[in-house]
């Protein structure tokens, strides 16, 4: 067999390789340009105490996790037990951003299935979500002591993602 006859076979193998990689990529995971940029500032009412407000400024000097969720978000329910574990471990403050929700529905969810959040900010019209480039809840952001976004997780946090990526990153950032 001469080398020329192998050319189509090699081309085919390259094509299969490209397709195999393409199939594994999730087009919904759009890399966020906000990573390594300062977390957008905001100051909005809290969910549980509408008269109190929350701003990322309040947590300057701490490493924290911002989790965007909503009562209407089905994948958030899947993520909820993982967040409860995270809250129990007391690794870092967990702040919720209740995105485009009704206050009564959101409070109902927290009452029924437990509240992992230290504070939940209430983003009724989704403006804060837009500043954070939220396009599919749930989304989570690891924010460092200087208020810079260091990591963005799109979709529900799995136990694996929490243990292998998020917690090690938080511990790393805490040292600096």
């Amino acid at each position, binding site marked *: 067999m001469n080398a020329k006859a192998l050319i189509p076979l090699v081309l085919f193998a390259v094509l299969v390789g490209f397709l195999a990689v393409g199939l594994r990529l999730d087009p919904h995971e*759009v890399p966020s*340009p906000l990573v390594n940029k300062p977390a957008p500032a905001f100051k909005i009412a809290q969910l549980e105490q509408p008269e109190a407000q929350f701003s990322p400024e309040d947590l300057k000097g701490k490493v924290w996790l911002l989790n965007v969720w909503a009562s209407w978000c089905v994948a958030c329910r899947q993520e909820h037990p993982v967040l409860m574990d995270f809250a129990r471990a007391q690794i870092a403050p967990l702040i919720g951003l209740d995105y485009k929700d009704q206050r009564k529905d959101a409070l109902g969810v927290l009452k029924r299935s437990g509240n992992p959040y230290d504070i939940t900010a209430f983003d009724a019209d989704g403006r804060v979500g837009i500043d954070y480039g939220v396009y599919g809840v749930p989304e989570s952001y690891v924010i460092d002591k200087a208020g810079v976004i260091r990591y963005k997780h799109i979709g529900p946090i799995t136990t694996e993602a929490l243990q292998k990526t998020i917690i090690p990153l938080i511990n790393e950032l805490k040292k600096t």
Partner: protein
Amino acid sequence: MKTLYALVLVLLACGAATAKEATLLADDPVVEQRLIAISEEMRCLVCQNESLAGSRSDLAMDLRRELRTLIKQGKTDAEIREFMVSRYGDFVLYRPPVKPTTWLLWAGPFGLMVVGVGALFVYLRRRNSEIAASGLTDEESKRVEALLKEGEK
């Protein structure tokens, strides 16, 4: 009966008088036109095969609301694009900008074309020389001519 009839007519007339044409999404058609022009060039993050102008997803509606505000504030198209790109990355643009990470994307097809044309050129040259090399000897061409003449008779 007649009074009732009259009353119904009056009520109907009232309804017609208060009815309005369906309002545009924005009160200002100029703003709306610019919004459409800009958002047609942008991808909706939720349903990625749709443009921001055409999508009916909640996020697209919110983003159109934001863009409308920006347009009313007198922001330029470039500033509005920057607003979107700073939040969602170049992915929102249907026309990706030319920069080092997208050079392959922009130049790739032309590169492939050059390679293809080059390969075709080389192949044709080689085939030509092969044909020339396999030419007939003098004796053979004389025989061909002789045979052809015979055929004409």
